[in-house]
């Protein structure tokens, strides 16, 4: 029998149910705005909810017309269709809802943007209303993507964690645009500048969510021809896409000029840094968008089949992010309006030195090899140290006595802490990525009982192979005794499961976590003589790849709990008067 959890999560393990989850979350967000939007001006709230309802209406129609989840099957299979074994994992319970909470959550900022355009009025208060919603969506999307990445890492059996697959890109693009939106909304809130751009980003972010839904749901990714043979669903989503993106951009084109430009700033300033952040993130997003769509366009228009894969993105996307990370520590330390780059550089000297020292140490430790890895690790350290420097400066930890620094730390806005955590998270993730890709050691062999494999200082002895019956599968388990320097550590039990209902099998890798590093064992095919193909990896600091995003999300939560967002935007004067007479 399939465990209960998978019976529930299996609901969104297919197209119809997945769309049902989509609209359920859309409805949830609409409901939240209606419930918690008391402090919004009435007309704005009405407009936001109306736009939200339009989006919902379009997708309800989509479900009704093309993907009815309640259709009856003429002859139901006796044992059920069963859920694909790869999906029978706790990951399916967490990852899709998280991802959708993020994806669909951006519909709120979209609705706010459209409402603002319809009213022709937009100000700092608007940005303050939008920011928490965007932040919530961003937190979920960050966690959702990280979670999906870790799931792929342990479930697929060869230790990859990001594949630049179009399906992944579909979730990465809204994340990049959403991150840019978060930052430009800060400028708008604090300095009343970048209004037009922020509106445009809100529209683009949700458009990318819709585009992602189209790419994945229409099947155009798998094959242009599959799309051509059964285009009903794809064409319907394409229509929704054109309607909302086209409509909102037309509205934007018509109304944007009426929005007044706000505060002025010099190129070197906090605003300038946030503009740079936006530039790099949007270009990175455009690169991913192009990489995803270019092969489709070439096949459709020129009948030329080509691929765009990981090596392309590594060459084009990575430099953009390196630039971005280099600029990250400077941003929060620059003053608004007009910053002093030289002064900030001096204040970041310690962080820079820390980065360089780490470069030197790593360089000496690995003795040559690629210069890129030590430099990238140094960059990661610089970003983390920069975030720490920012907090130290703000609290006066070095200048002032400890007690008053502590007092100031408590008084520091939570959003400042949030910024520091989120930025440090970037550095942490970078270090993890570099260490995993550069110093990953791998051992592939056919092993018999009592064979020993040596990987990165660990000795793995194959004790034997066993069979076991699970709730809805049979599995073959290999038992490895892991030791280091003659000291036995633990037993690792990777397995291969075969599912009878579907006649398919999965590989369950065994993971041993030591600090942030992991030992990863997965099984291949067994040979007739009782030997088995084994792949063993040692992945140094691999967990940092996911601790980074968790830190980022934590920073987002801190920011979300900032007093200024909790207290909310200034209420209209009318409401105040009504509350006063008791005095």
């Amino acid at each position, binding site marked *: 029998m399939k465990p209960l959890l998978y019976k529930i999560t299996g609901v969104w393990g297919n197209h119809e149910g997945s769309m049902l989850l989509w609209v359920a979350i859309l409805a949830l967000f609409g409901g939240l705005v209606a419930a918690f939007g008391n402090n919004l001006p009435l007309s704005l709230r009405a407009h936001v909810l109306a736009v939200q309802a339009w989006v919902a209406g379009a997708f309800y129609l989509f479900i009704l017309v093309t993907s009815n989840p309640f259709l009856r099957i003429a002859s139901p299979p006796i044992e059920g269709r069963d859920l694909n074994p790869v999906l029978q994992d706790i990951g399916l319970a967490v990852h899709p809802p998280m991802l959708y909470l993020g994806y669909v959550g951006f519909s709120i900022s979209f609705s706010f943007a459209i409402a603002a355009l319809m009213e022709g009025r937009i100000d700092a208060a608007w940005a303050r209303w939008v920011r928490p919603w965007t932040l919530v969506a961003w937190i979920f999307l960050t966690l959702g993507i990280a979670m999906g990445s870790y799931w792929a890492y342990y479930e697929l*059996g060869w230790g990859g964690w990001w594949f630049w*697959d179009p399906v992944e890109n579909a979730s990465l693009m809204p994340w990049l645009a959403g991150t840019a939106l978060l930052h430009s909304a800060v400028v708008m809130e604090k300095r009343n500048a970048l209004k037009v751009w922020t509106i445009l980003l809100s529209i683009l972010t949700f458009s990318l969510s819709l585009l992602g839904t189209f790419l994945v749901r229409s099947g155009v990714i*798998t094959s242009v021809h599959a799309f051509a043979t059964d285009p009903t669903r794809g064409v319907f989503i394409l229509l929704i896409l054109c309607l909302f993106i086209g409509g909102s951009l037309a509205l934007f084109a018509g109304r944007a000029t009426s929005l007044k430009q706000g505060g002025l700033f010099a190129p070197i300033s906090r605003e300038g840094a946030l503009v740079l952040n936006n*530039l790099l993130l949007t270009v990175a997003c455009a690169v991913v968008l192009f990489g995803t769509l270019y092969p489709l366009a070439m096949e459709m228009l020129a009948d030329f089949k080509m*691929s765009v894969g990981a090596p392309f993105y590594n060459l084009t996307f990575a430099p953009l992010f390196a630039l971005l990370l280099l600029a990250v520590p400077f941003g929060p330390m620059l003053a608004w309006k*007009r910053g002093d780059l030289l002064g900030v550089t001096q204040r970041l000297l310690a962080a820079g030195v820390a980065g360089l020292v780490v470069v030197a140490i790593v360089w000496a430790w690995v003795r040559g090899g690629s210069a890129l890895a030590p430099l990238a690790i140094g960059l990661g350290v610089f970003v983390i140290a920069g975030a720490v420097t920012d907090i130290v400066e703000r609290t006066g930890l070095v200048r002032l006595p400890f007690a008053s620094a502590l007092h100031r730390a408590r008084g520091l806005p939570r959003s400042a802490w949030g910024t520091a955590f989120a930025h440090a998270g970037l550095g942490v993730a970078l270090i993890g990525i570099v260490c995993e890709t550069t110093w990953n050691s791998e051992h592939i062999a056919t092993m018999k009982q009592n064979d020993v494999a040596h990987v990165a200082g660990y000795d793995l002895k194959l004790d034997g192979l066993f069979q076991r019956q699970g709730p809805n599968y049979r599995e073959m388990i290999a038992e490895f005794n892991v030791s280091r320097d003659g000291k036995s550590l633990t037993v690792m039990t990777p397995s291969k499961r075969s599912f009878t209902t579907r006649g398919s099998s999965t590989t369950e890798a065994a993971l041993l976590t030591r600090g942030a590093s992991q030992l990863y064992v997965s099984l291949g095919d067994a040979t007739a003589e009782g030997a088995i193909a084994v792949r063993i990896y040692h992945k140094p600091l691999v967990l940092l790849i996911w601790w980074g995003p968790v830190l980022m999300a934590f920073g987002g939560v801190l920011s979300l709990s900032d007093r200024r967002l909790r207290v909310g935007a200034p209420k209209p004067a009318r409401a105040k008067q009504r509350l006063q007479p008791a005095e």
Partner: protein
Amino acid sequence: MRRMMAAFVALLLLALPAAHAVQPDEIMSDPAKESRARELSRELRCMVCQNQSIDDSDAPLARDLRLLVRERIAAGDSNSQVLDFLVARYGDFVLLKPRFERQNLLLWMLGPVLLLGGGLALWLQIRRRSGSGADVPPPPLTADEKTRLAALMSDDSKPS
């Protein structure tokens, strides 16, 4: 069709079933050549899979391609000769990193052009705007405003 649909929910888990790419019997005896083979494998697409390199895929075709790559390397081909050989056989579809050629120019140049163009445009605009307004000092206070300010300041200094 169903496969592809569910793939979204699982990200790409469905499309990429448990994989055991390089098999023990494929590995070349010369570690330098083997590492070249691995490097090349990561740039070559398994044509029957969804966006998987032959290094990651356990499809029989991927295995054939891996063996083919190793064969060419053993025969003394350089990396680019191996790639040329495979492109001649299977077309550009086999390359995960598109070549820097005329039809791919837009793809490769988009990032740098956008970055430089966008950066330049933004810099000019911000400078023009800040130059036109930010440096001008605010107009001096009128006599009326000065007296109001003085009144406010003195009011503030008194303990309340």
